């Protein structure tokens, strides 16, 4: 087991080494504004039996949880996903293994029943680095997970720091759990938003190697355009008594485009809501060395209550009228008719290429794009309405780095974010910052449903009306039969 704790300040912010107190048990420093990232790495043998048994049977398992509360990201920790609980999964040899029960227990998810029912398949023919299956569910908080983790990691009698560190997960903005058969390790990474906090970290246990870094991005003169520079202080608890300064750089896939966007549904939403994205600028990221290759994309994960119709999104004229250019990926096999309550797959993901207005005429002006969506019928309620929650998409400019550019894995890399598997190896994602007016990265739609309060008489009255209508027609038919009988007799009399 290893631990790494990183405080990331913004470019230009730094801290004097003398302000930090380091001893064998921890580090103490002043309060600064920073992002905090904690990463714990477990070997398989260090895991509880139930989890170990599950992981031994899978090939890849990546959980990405993102808070619905808008947060500010700081370079290099820029990768974004729609808020909620994401699972990217590749089964091992035994495909009957079902990770759902353990996931539901650990995270409080409820729509995961089995891979064959709840998961959707991802294309693996395009790029080999993606997983084969995807699952998603809106999940506003990690409360269930912290409770689960406490019961597992902090047995009675363990120090209060164990429980309090896990409790702090409730204010995290991201949580990643990654396992693959190649590394045979489980990595748990949590990220807290950019906020004032005291630079303090303590050793969990003497047997755990704990590395602490206080860093910020830097721009040394030797920096290549596709690289990010990092400067700061590093220390390994128990090994050194003073942090040592460091400066290094690496190519990064996730960058900041310095544009922003927000999303909302156009009223009235009806059963075919249109999600409007308002984007602050039509210009590709100015810092990208390969601006001409940049295309603006939106990556959506849509719970099953709402879905895109890929046939509707096929027509170039229609797409152009919404400032969209093409569908790059859509979950195949989405049922276009079934109600939500009989649909078993979690929903669908959608990767759209957007079409910004030409930059010569509207330089720097905000513009909009519209995503037409469709609601399924939801189950009846006592008010006649239900709400569907639709997470914000991740918006980014995907630019192709110059030929020959390599992206070796870097210490802050975040992969398996859904859309990265749909692009080539040389793609750089320049993210747009979501800025919702209410601070929530989720839009809600009011969905009209059957009002159960008024439904008491539906069966009886429907049946009654049908019987009446039927009886009326039968009476008329009887009239026909009787009158023709009469006519036959009249005919006989005449003869």
């Amino acid at each position, binding site marked *: 087991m290893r631990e790494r704790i990183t405080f990331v300040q913004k470019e230009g912010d730094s801290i004097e080494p003398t302000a930090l107190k380091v001893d064998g048990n921890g580090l103490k420093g002043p309060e600064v504004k920073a992002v905090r990232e904690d990463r714990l790495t477990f070997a398989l043998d260090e895991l509880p039996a139930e989890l170990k048994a599950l992981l031994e049977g899978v090939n890849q398992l990546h959980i990405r949880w993102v808070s619905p509360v808008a947060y500010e990201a700081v370079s290099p920790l820029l990768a974004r996903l729609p808020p909620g609980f994401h699972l990217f999964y590749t089964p091992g040899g035994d495909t009957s293994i079902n990770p759902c029960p353990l996931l539901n227990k650990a995270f409080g998810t409820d729509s995961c029943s089995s891979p064959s029912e709840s998961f959707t398949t991802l294309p693996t023919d395009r790029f080999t680095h993606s997983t084969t299956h995807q699952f998603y569910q809106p999940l506003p908080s990690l409360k269930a997970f912290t409770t689960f983790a406490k019961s597992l990691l902090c047995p009675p009698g363990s120090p209060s720091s164990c429980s309090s560190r896990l409790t702090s997960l409730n204010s995290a903005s991201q949580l990643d759990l990654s396992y693959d058969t190649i590394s045979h390790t489980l990595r748990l990474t949590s990220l807290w938003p950019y906020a004032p906090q005291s630079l303090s970290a303590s050793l969990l246990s003497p047997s755990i190697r704990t590395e602490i870094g206080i860093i910020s991005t830097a721009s040394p003169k030797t920096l290549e355009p596709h690289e990010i520079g990092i400067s700061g202080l590093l220390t390994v608890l128990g090994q050194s008594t003073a942090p040592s300064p460091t400066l290094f750089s690496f190519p990064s896939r996730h960058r900041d485009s310095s544009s922003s966007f927000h999303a909302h549904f156009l009223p009235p939403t009806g059963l075919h809501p249109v999600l409007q994205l308002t984007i602050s600028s039509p210009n590709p990221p100015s810092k990208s060395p390969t601006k001409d290759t940049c295309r603006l994309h939106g990556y959506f994960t849509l719970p099953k209550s709402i879905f895109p119709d890929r046939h509707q999104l096929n027509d170039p004229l229609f797409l152009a009228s919404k400032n969209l250019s093409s569908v790059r990926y859509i979950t195949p096999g989405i049922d276009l008719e079934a109600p939500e309550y*009989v649909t078993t797959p979690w929903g669908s993901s959608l990767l759209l290429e957007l079409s910004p207005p030409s930059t010569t005429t509207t330089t720097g002006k905000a513009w909009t794009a519209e995503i037409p969506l469709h609601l399924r019928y939801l*189950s*009846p309620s006592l008010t006649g309405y239900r709400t569907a929650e639709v997470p914000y998409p991740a918006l980014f400019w995907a630019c192709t780095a110059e030929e020959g550019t390599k992206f070796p894995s870097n210490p802050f890399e975040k992969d398996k974010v859904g859309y990265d598997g749909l692009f080539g190896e040389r793609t750089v994602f320049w993210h747009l910052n979501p800025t919702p007016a209410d601070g929530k990265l989720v839009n809600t739609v009011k969905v009209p449903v*059957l009002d159960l309060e008024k439904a008491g008489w539906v069966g009886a009255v429907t049946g009654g009306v049908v019987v009446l209508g*039927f009886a009326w027609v039968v009476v008329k038919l009887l009239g026909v039969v009787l009158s023709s009988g009469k006519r036959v007799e009249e005919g006989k009399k005449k003869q």
Partner: protein
Amino acid sequence: MTKPSPTGQPRPPATPPSQGAPSLVTTFFDRPLPLYLSAAIFRLVFLLYGLWQDANSPVKYTDIDYLVFTDAARFVSQGQSPYERETYRYTPVLAWLLLPTAHVTGNRILDVAFFSSGKVLFAIADLVAGWLLEKVLAKSMDGPRARKFATIWLLNPMVATISTRGSSEGLLGVLVMALLWAVLERRVTLAGLLLGFSVHFKIYPFIYAPAIIWWMDNEKMSPNKTKPTKSPQPTSPTTKILNFLTPARLQLTIISLATFSALNIAMYLIYAHPFLQETYLHHITRLDHRHNFSPYNTQLYLSSSLPHPSTAFRIEKLAFLPQLLLSTILIPLATAKKSLPASMLAQTFAFVTFNKVCTSQYFLWYMVLLPLYLPQSSFLRHKRFGLAALVLWVAAQGAWLQQGFELEFLGNSTFLPGLWLASLGFFGVNCWILGVIIGDVGRQ
């Protein structure tokens, strides 16, 4: 100056005796050409307008179903199954018929023409249905009057729109009309082939089988049309049954069943289970209850969402009972021998009205038969009554559409009571109209 009608029947009183030059309307119906030419031009204009709208507006003229058919045809042209296209729920024959739409030449104008060839086919089917309609009508009236009634179909904007938007319902129109014509012409083999094929194509024409068989008694089928000398009334049930089993009835039954089975076996051999699932089984298991005109709609939504199926009594489980009783047994028995076209109209009307799913496309199923009944209808004899019925039918639909609009586009929860009551109201109006139609048959 009017030509004597070919059948030698007196001219209907509706046509005023010509004084001086014949009126434009009279000349229009005198010969077939003007009517069919204008019906064709009418559709051509719709078709070209549709192409223009599709090319210039994000709101498409072309029906979404046409994209389903043509996608399926493309799969077929690539040697794949048409059922690769989701929501393709039709016989593969339709995709085969539309194979030219998948043809790509590289020339833009030619490609658009090829892609639209399916709509042309549907529009031609409309015209042929109208022509057969005229031929059936002409059995009981002169040519111009028959053409006048055929106009209700041929120059009907709703019919022309539906076929040029690329909906295949027009093909059903021509099949059903050809079936009726073949039966009235006593062409039993042809009728059997058409019946078997129609049922394979869209299931619902099976309701015509009992009516046609009931109608085909010896009296109707005797070639010399003179009344046969009254044979003594059969006494024992066995003789009754033996008398019922006429050669014509047996021939129709065997040929139609053989056609239907042969087509299905062939399709199953080619496309296996997806063919059965999408074309037939889907209709049994479907849970697609997005709001539609059916009176059962609200109840279906309600019961499909309840957690424990089969615990409570479900009215919709019995929905097929009134529907099939009326459309396959009671209406044919009471009316088919009096007027086969009117019986078929009433059966179709009952089938659509009592169906678990009902959309406006289904109205086309009975609209093609309507001109055959109208000449003898009380709706036309008492103009005010007819107008009132039409207004009522449209208003009931309008009320439903208004509630549907509020739900679909404004997001108001109008399921209860608005949409539900509107669908029950529309159902009531339809039942009343059905009763009037049946009453009219009784008067004949």
